[in-house]
């Protein structure tokens, strides 16, 4: 019986164990995927998903355990080995050379003589047709949209003959429509007999695409279940280890005054191209305004303009009837406008990675101190308070924040902004890369602010969350507002249409509440 089963599996991992020093990242993990099957790998941050996948793609080596590919035991010592075994990894952050054409990226690292462009181009087109991919091999990657880049990534591994695909959070940067398209491609690959492992945090997607789900928790494989027998609630329970409420609270606040009003604002990127194009909207006290949009639609520039980091070409930002344009960032902070932007690399903006928590707290408050010397005591107290309040896991207040895990870094950043008791809180991607538990902590924090009558602007990626958390949702597309809608009555599809600018109701002044 066991013999027969073995040959069916594309990948079979048996009792894989990996230690980093004293920390067990993977503890006797079992995992298997058949050809013609999509397996979802689910788990919180730090549950060992990435470690496991890195072992399959040859970046790490397991300390013990066996890996079978197509029934044969193998040792995967490098990315090249993995490629030769037909394993292709599609990373969350694309590994593409922007200055190259799609086809150059696709043939990169292949052995043998260089072929004529035309031959390569033909081959690529043939593969694309088989799997229903759309691509222009001659196009430069720098000119491509996110979803086109992902197509190149997929083709890269298919071109090298991969039959086992591993996708690490492939939908994080896609619109709902693009996600649908990706899923259609994945289903087609499954039909053609590929084995696919997909890592994602979004339960809805797990349920939509996968055949089976393997759940990891704290480095152990907890269970493998058939997707058909599951729902979101059960998956969460397995993942977290206890029942968790999936509802996001949305307290209803009484109608209050408008605190921040943006009028006809236009902002250019530092390179001169238009980032924000003539937009107007307002935020009230005690509401959460969700901002949806494909990455790079002007969210970052909007944040920076409000925080006074980027000069604007036209328009006004009115904070209680006072124009913030032309004010310095510190004057704007003084007024109570607070921003926490979590960039793709999670650090970079707001926190200094190599400084400890105390010093990072000081960054926003040292100017208030009297005399030439810095008083570190209040900052240290604040850091300790945050550690206790938000459950930040850190060896100490002086440990450089870059050594903390992603979730904890985000808590430090958001915690500091909230502790400044702002009247307007702008937060961008605060749950980027966080697992369910940490995400809910962040949502609770935001709701707490809302109840304190703070105006919250929440720029997010996950539409399901935006729909549940926000009062109103504003959609950005290419720097323009393509709609402001009531989050209680709109649908995901409607927002998806607006994100691509396909709706015709460009109605910036529409008041939903």
């Amino acid at each position: 019986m066991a013999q027969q089963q073995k040959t069916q599996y594309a990948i079979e991992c048996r009792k894989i164990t990996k230690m980093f020093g004293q920390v067990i990242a993977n503890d006797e993990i079992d995992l298997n995927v058949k050809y013609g099957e999509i397996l979802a790998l689910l788990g919180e941050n730090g549950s060992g998903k990435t470690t496991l996948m890195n072992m399959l793609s040859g970046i790490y080596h397991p300390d013990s355990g066996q890996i079978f590919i197509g029934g044969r035991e193998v040792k995967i010592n490098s990315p090249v080995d993995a490629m030769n075994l037909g394993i292709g990894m599609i990373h969350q952050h694309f590994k593409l050379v922007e200055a190259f054409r799609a086809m150059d990226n696709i043939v990169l690292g292949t052995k043998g003589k260089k072929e004529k462009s035309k031959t390569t181009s033909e081959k690529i087109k043939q593969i694309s047709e088989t799997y229903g991919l759309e691509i222009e091999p001659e196009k430069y990657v720098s000119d491509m949209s996110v979803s086109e880049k992902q197509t190149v990534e997929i083709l890269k591994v298919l071109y090298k003959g991969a039959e086992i695909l591993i996708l690490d959070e492939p939908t994080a940067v896609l619109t709902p429509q693009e996600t649908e398209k990706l899923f259609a491609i994945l289903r087609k690959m499954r039909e053609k007999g590929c084995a696919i492992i997909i890592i994602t945090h979004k339960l809805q997607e797990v349920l939509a695409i996968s055949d089976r789900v393997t759940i990891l928790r704290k480095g152990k494989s907890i269970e493998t279940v058939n997707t058909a027998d599951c729902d979101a609630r059960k998956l969460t329970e397995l993942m977290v280890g206890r029942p968790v409420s999936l509802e996001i609270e949305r307290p209803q606040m009484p109608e209050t005054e408008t605190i921040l009003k943006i009028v006809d604002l236009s902002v250019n990127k530092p390179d001169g191209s238009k980032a924000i194009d003539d937009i107007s909207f307002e935020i009230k006290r005690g509401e959460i305004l969700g901002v949806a949009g494909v990455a790079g639609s002007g969210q970052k520039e909007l944040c920076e303009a409000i925080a006074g980091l980027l000069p604007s070409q036209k328009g006004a930002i009115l904070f209680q009837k006072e124009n913030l344009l032309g004010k310095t960032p510190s004057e704007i902070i003084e007024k109570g406008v607070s921003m926490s932007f979590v960039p793709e690399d999670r650090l970079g903006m707001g926190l200094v990675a190599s400084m400890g928590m105390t010093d990072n707290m000081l960054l926003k408050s040292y100017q208030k101190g009297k005399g030439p010397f810095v008083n570190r005591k209040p900052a240290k107290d604040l850091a300790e308070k945050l550690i206790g309040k938000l459950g930040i896991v850190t060896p100490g207040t002086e440990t450089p924040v870059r050594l903390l895990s992603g979730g904890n870094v985000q808590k430090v950043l958001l915690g500091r902004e909230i502790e400044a008791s702002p009247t307007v809180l702008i937060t961008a991607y605060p749950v980027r890369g966080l697992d369910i538990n940490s995400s809910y902590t962040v949502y609770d924090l935001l709701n707490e602010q809302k109840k304190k009558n703070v105006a919250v602007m929440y720029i997010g990626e996950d539409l399901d969350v935006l729909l549940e958390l926000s009062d109103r949702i504003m959609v950005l597309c290419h720097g323009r507002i393509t709609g402001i809608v009531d989050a209680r009555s709109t649908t995901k599809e409607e927002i998806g249409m607006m994100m691509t600018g396909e709706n015709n109701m460009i109605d910036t002044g529409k008041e939903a509440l």
Partner: protein
Amino acid sequence: MDIIIKFLVAAVGAGTPLLFGTVGEILTEKTGHLNLGVEGMMSIGACIGFMVGYYTDNFFLALLFAAIAGACSALIYAVLTVTFMANQNVTGLTLTIFGIGFANFIGIFVLNKSPEGTLKLPERITAAMRGIHIPGLSDIPVIGELLFSYSPFVYIGIIIAVICAYYLNRTKEGLNLKAIGENPGAADAAGIKITKVKYINIILGGAICGIGGVYCSMIINGGVWISDNVGGLGWIAVALVIFANWQPSYAILGSFVFGALRVLKYYIPQSVFPFPIAFYDMLPFLMTALVLVISSMRKSGRINLPAALGLNYFREER
């Protein structure tokens, strides 16, 4: 007419050491490593090549050892920046300072031992470096002088530049190299052996710079050793890389233009432009500064600047 041809011929000669330096640095920079040690690598090549030529009286041995010396000095840079991930700018600057000092030290050391008090290359090797003469071809008026009258260095330089252009633009190895300079993470994921490719190209680049150096010591001063014989050409080469948009084929043109600037002072009649000689000495450097300013303002078009230039790659860094 005659003076124009002489000027052009002189320009090509004066541009040749720049051509070597520029092509060598292009190879290096395509790995994503900015080696500011061109001046130093050229100086070391100049010194070792000259000394080998002086003692063996063999042109090709001199060339070979200049290239090896350049390669060895680039190896120092590669070990420090690729393996130990030292800061590239500091390492390169240090290499320049070291290279010039090393060359002058050896030069003076040998000079003090020579009975004549000067170091002059023997006759046979000087003859080998002189302008070639191909019967028939070199005798064609104008064209003969413009195309077939140069020192073998000129032809070697152009051949190297053409080979490098082919290597970068037409081969898989070149594609791999460019990928590393653009996005080492992507190259790594594609299974390219980054460290190996970096070492090979940085060392090759150093070897080419070394040959450029030996031109400075053996030709420019008529076969007599003087100190500081590279005299800043390495720095111009670093700027020429930008001028050439990281293309070896443009480097040929660029280095001859700069060569022309260097010899301009001998061909401009003083009566027409009464500038002091020092002005003409300054011209190449002034142009270098201008090139840097203009190219940093250039926004449109596909600039070939390797995106990861100056950044050391560490796989596990996030």
